[in-house]
Each structure stands twice: as structure tokens, then as C-alpha cells.
């Protein structure tokens, strides 16, 4: 399933941290016109390099769907950054 929410936590100092829950659906909606252009550009590129556009589109959609569950957590010195897609 395509990620619905992104959680970002940034801690620059032990006493200061920022936690954001970003709903991704509005971002997808905002990006829809750009996505349309990307699809057209992708179709042209597929024709140029003789790649099956359906396979490329499927693989791209699977990549996007596979992002759900990605979790990156990095702690260095007193800083901490965490990104989670669900």
C-alpha cells in the first residue's frame, strides 16, 4: 500500500526535539499535475530506449507501494533524526 503518513523526528539538542506527522495524501494531490508530466516524459523515454512502458509503470508503482514500512533512524552525538513511512 502506498504510504499514507510520514513521521519525522529531529532532535538537535537533548532538550529540543521536533516531531512531525505529515499526511501524504494532500502531497500526492498537489503533485498530481507534475505526475502527469512525469508519466508523459517517462513514456517518451520508454519509446526512446525501447522499454515496455507498462512494465516500467508497474515497477514504479510497486516501488512507491514498497516504501510503506521504511524506517530510518540515525543517532549521532547529541543529534537524532528519524524518518518513518507508514
Amino acid at each position: 500500500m502506498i504510504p499514507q503518513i510520514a513521521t519525522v523526528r529531529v532532535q538537535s539538542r537533548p532538550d529540543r526535539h521536533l516531531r512531525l506527522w505529515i499526511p501524504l495524501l494532500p502531497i500526492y494531490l498537489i503533485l498530481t499535475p507534475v505526475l502527469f508530466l512525469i508519466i508523459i516524459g517517462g513514456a517518451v523515454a520508454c519509446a526512446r530506449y525501447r522499454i515496455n512502458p507498462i512494465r516500467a509503470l508497474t515497477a514504479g508503482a510497486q516501488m512507491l507501494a514498497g516504501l510503506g514500512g521504511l524506517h530510518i533512524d540515525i543517532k549521532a552525538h547529541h543529534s537524532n533524526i528519524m524518518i518513518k513511512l507508514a
Partner: protein
Amino acid sequence: MNEQRMQILEMVAENKLTVDEADRLIAALDDTPTQNQATPESKPKRPKYLRVLVDSRDDGEQTHVNVRIPIQLIRAGVKLASIIPPKALDQANIELQRSGMPIDLTRLKPEDIDELIDHLGDMTVEVEDHENKVHVFCE
């Protein structure tokens, strides 16, 4: 009703077994999985995530990296790689050979890589020295 249960009931009818003994035998049959019914434990558990844990100590300061990558994302990446045009694969092969890795990417089939990913669950990589530790495994 299966054959074994029928035999038990026939033995009760012929007074070869008491009702209690038959009850215990039927209960034992219920506990024993048949050949057609595989228990959930017998199925190989497919990994869902690839975990990379890095603990590093540099000048007394500790760095900790914890990355969880969905296996589905790796699978999709492999599928995306399978649509790379042969011309680009040839170039990649040349570069790999130049780097000392004589791998022919054109011979790599998506089915093989899929099978490889399925068996990632058995893999654990652990590299450790006195200050750094890297642990890669599937869960």
C-alpha cells in the same frame, strides 16, 4: 470421517475397546496433523524487512544507525532493474569487470533474484571490530 476413526468405532462396536480408550485414541488422532494439513509452523517464514544496524564509535562519540527496509521495496527495485535496456547492462558489465567484479548482469533473471530474496531470511551478516559493529539481517 476418515478410515482410522471408522476402525476405532468398529472396535468399540465389537467390544474390543472401551469408550474411554476410543475417546483417547480419537483425541490423539486430532492432535496429529495429517500429511495434507501442514501446520503454520512448518511453513517457511518469509522475511518482511531487511534491517541494517550500525554502531560506530569515533573519538568517544557514538553513532547509531538503524534502518528497516521493506523486502517489498527490494523486490520492486529488482523488477525496476529488470527493465534496464541491454545496452545499459553491457556498459554496467564493463564497469563491473573494470572494478574486479566479473558479473554478467544480462544473465541475471528476475526469477533468480526473487528466489534469492526469498532466502534472505536465513542470512545474517555481522561485522565487528573493537569500535564498530555492523549487523545485517532479515525479520
